[in-house]
């Protein structure tokens, strides 16, 4: 234990000497500020497509669509419609002619949409047209009128249509979860990039510092074992990750989630990063050579964030990246939806991954790092 303790102190000193201990609180403050005060709770960039409407048909279309869109969405000519769609990214135009029974609807799009996306959008309009035809005559005459449109009545009938003209029943496996504010939703990817992958960086930093100073050569002739060598770096990194993680979470999420679950996941995840960092750094002489590989690993580790922000996009090649399950694990811990058993399953998988990586890093450090000359 005494030997392990002195190794831990040595590793802590390495991190101190290289400003790392100042890095942690500085970054934590930066992230806390960004989450709480920079990223808005509802950001405009992810909001709906800008829709522009040109109606040269029945008033009913304008009156119906006024319930959903503002005056600025309506234009006075087809040319203006095309200009607006051309100049505005993430936009679409609707040109309407005719009445309810025989409408002529043209969807003006920018050309960047996929076939499936266009199919979805045209289906939405087909659905609107079909349902409008089902409206009772009294509502149609209200909608055709130019004044005193009672939008509450339209909302009532929209609800009526939704309930009575649905082709199916709905079941939610768990109760519908509340919308997560966009700023807090950014936390899981940040936790991956900062905490999990920090271990990757720090593990490597310690090894390179020791290579530079020649401490590894000195260690070889001590009674200390490879296991103890790894354990000290492991302990320092895990502790740093936990402190970093808790600092961020306390000042962004408060005590609104289960910290024990968070502790378990962070422990396993940051341990994975540390072991990867230790394993790979063995192959490089200087940190300058390791840096691009580290960035590549950071990039790969961060790719699951795409699936996180776009949950319907989860190709197999992304789902097999270890950080994929970790990012969704953090999501479930911070914003619980009642997913039973997931933490246990994920912890077991991560534990197995950690064991495999530990064996690999042990063998690499024992048979390569400890036997290196120069």
């Amino acid at each position, binding site marked *: 234990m005494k030997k392990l303790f002195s190794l831990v102190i040595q590793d802590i000193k390495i991190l101190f000497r*290289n*400003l790392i201990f100042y*890095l942690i609180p*500085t970054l934590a403050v930066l992230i806390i500020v*960004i989450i709480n005060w*920079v*990223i*808005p709770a509802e*950001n405009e960039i992810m909001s709906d497509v800008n829709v522009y409407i040109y109606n040269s048909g029945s008033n009913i279309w304008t009156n119906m669509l006024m319930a959903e869109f503002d005056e600025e969405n309506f234009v006075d000519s087809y040319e203006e419609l095309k200009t607006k769609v*051309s*100049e505005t*990214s993430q936009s679409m135009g609707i040109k309407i002619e005719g009445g309810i029974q025989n409408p*002529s609807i*043209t*969807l003006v*799009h*920018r*050309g*960047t*949409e*996929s*076939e*499936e996306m266009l*199919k*979805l959008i*045209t289906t*939405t309009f087909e*659905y609107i047209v*079909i349902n409008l035809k089902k409206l009772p005559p009294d509502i149609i005459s209200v909608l055709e009128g130019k004044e005193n449109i009672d939008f509450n009545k339209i909302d009532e009938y929209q609800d009526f249509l939704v309930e009575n*003209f649905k*082709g*199916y*029943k*709905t*079941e*939610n*496996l768990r*109760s*519908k*979860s509340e919308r997560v504010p*966009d700023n807090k939703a950014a936390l899981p990817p940040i936790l991956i990039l900062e905490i999990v992958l920090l271990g990757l960086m720090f593990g490597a930093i310690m090894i*390179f*510092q020791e290579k530079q100073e020649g401490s590894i050569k000195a260690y070889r002739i001590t009674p200390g074992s490879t296991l103890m060598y790894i354990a000290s770096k492991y302990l320092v990194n895990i502790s740093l990750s936990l402190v970093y993680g808790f600092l961020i979470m306390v000042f962004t999420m408060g005590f609104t989630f289960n910290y024990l679950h968070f502790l378990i996941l962070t422990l396993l995840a940051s341990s994975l990063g540390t072991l990867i960092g230790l394993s790979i750094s063995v192959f490089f002489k200087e940190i*300058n*050579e390791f*840096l691009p*590989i580290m*960035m*590549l690993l950071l990039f790969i580790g961060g*790719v699951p964030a*795409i*699936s996180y922000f776009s*949950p*319907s*996009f*989860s190709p197999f090649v992304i*789902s097999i990246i270890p950080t*994929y399950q970790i990012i*969704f694990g953090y999501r479930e811990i911070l914003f619980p939806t009642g*997913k039973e058993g997931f933490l246990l399953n994920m912890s077991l998988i991560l534990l197995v991954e950690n064991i495999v990586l530990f064996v690999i890093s042990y063998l690499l450090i024992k048979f390569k790092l400890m036997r290196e000359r120069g």
Partner: protein
Amino acid sequence: MMIKRMYYFIKKDIRNSFKDSAVLIYVLFPIIIAIVLKLIIPGIESANITFVIDETSVNKQIIDTLDEYGYIETYNGVDKVKKRINDFDDVTGLIKENGEYKVIYEGNESENYTEITGVVLNRVLLSTEEVTIKLENLNITKSFIFEYIAIIVVVLCILFTSIMGAFNIVDEKEHNTVKALGVTPLNLMEYIISRAIIMLVFSTIITFICVIIMFGFNINYLNMFLAIIFSLGIGVLFSFIVGGFAKSEIEALGLMKMTGWLVSGIPIGAIFIPASWQWTLYIFPNYWMFNTIKNIFIGPQEVGFLLSGIITLASSIIFIIILMKFVGKQLKLR
């Protein structure tokens, strides 16, 4: 004479850079990112509803029709469908129970997602009525997500070359090369300009390759080159903050991590911060760098390309002048 001194310094630095394989990876890495993003982004942008269907109860005609709207995964039985729905991604389950269709969600899907899938399912399950919606394609090839990601990639290209510069500076300090430079006629200004020229060369090569991969030749490359020149100040600034203050490569890594957040975080933040709050970022030269590049990829902005570029360069020069008062002492050049 000044040009000759700078030329020899640049030649030395480029030769040193190619001594190890790291520079190759620095150059390749943004290119790899560009290729990967080019492959992934169309997948994200396309509608990708996944329907998870119980093939034992839902008839084939419905399955075939839904295939036109997204991906289909079929399973043998309701339990398997529900198990699949419990995975992390968003999918829509469809089964038939007692003659009625039932749609199953996990419960954590966004409202937008359930609305869209609801519309599709109603259309497919409920009505066979023919409705013709015409399409008019304006053939504008720039895509929304791709535009912003391309801007971030260009920022990263410039950042990478400045990281290379930073580590070269640290290397010079560690090997006392900088002391040797101190007794040469090369002064601090020439040192900075030489570093800037090296960054310009590497940034241009890497950025152009990345942008060609992502956009082909549909971009104004003259403006792209000008944007890189305007952004050089930021590259130099980052390079000297990290290289100037770090005493070792390891310290440089730590400083890089800290300052990297500011350099890349400001442009990313500019995407998400509401327009009414953008003024809080005006003090940062990399905000204006982002705006300059945005003018190229997205189109004319409120502050145009040339003005944004000039502000980028001017503001970064001001920061460099302030920084040099501290870093100059570290480097001990004339």
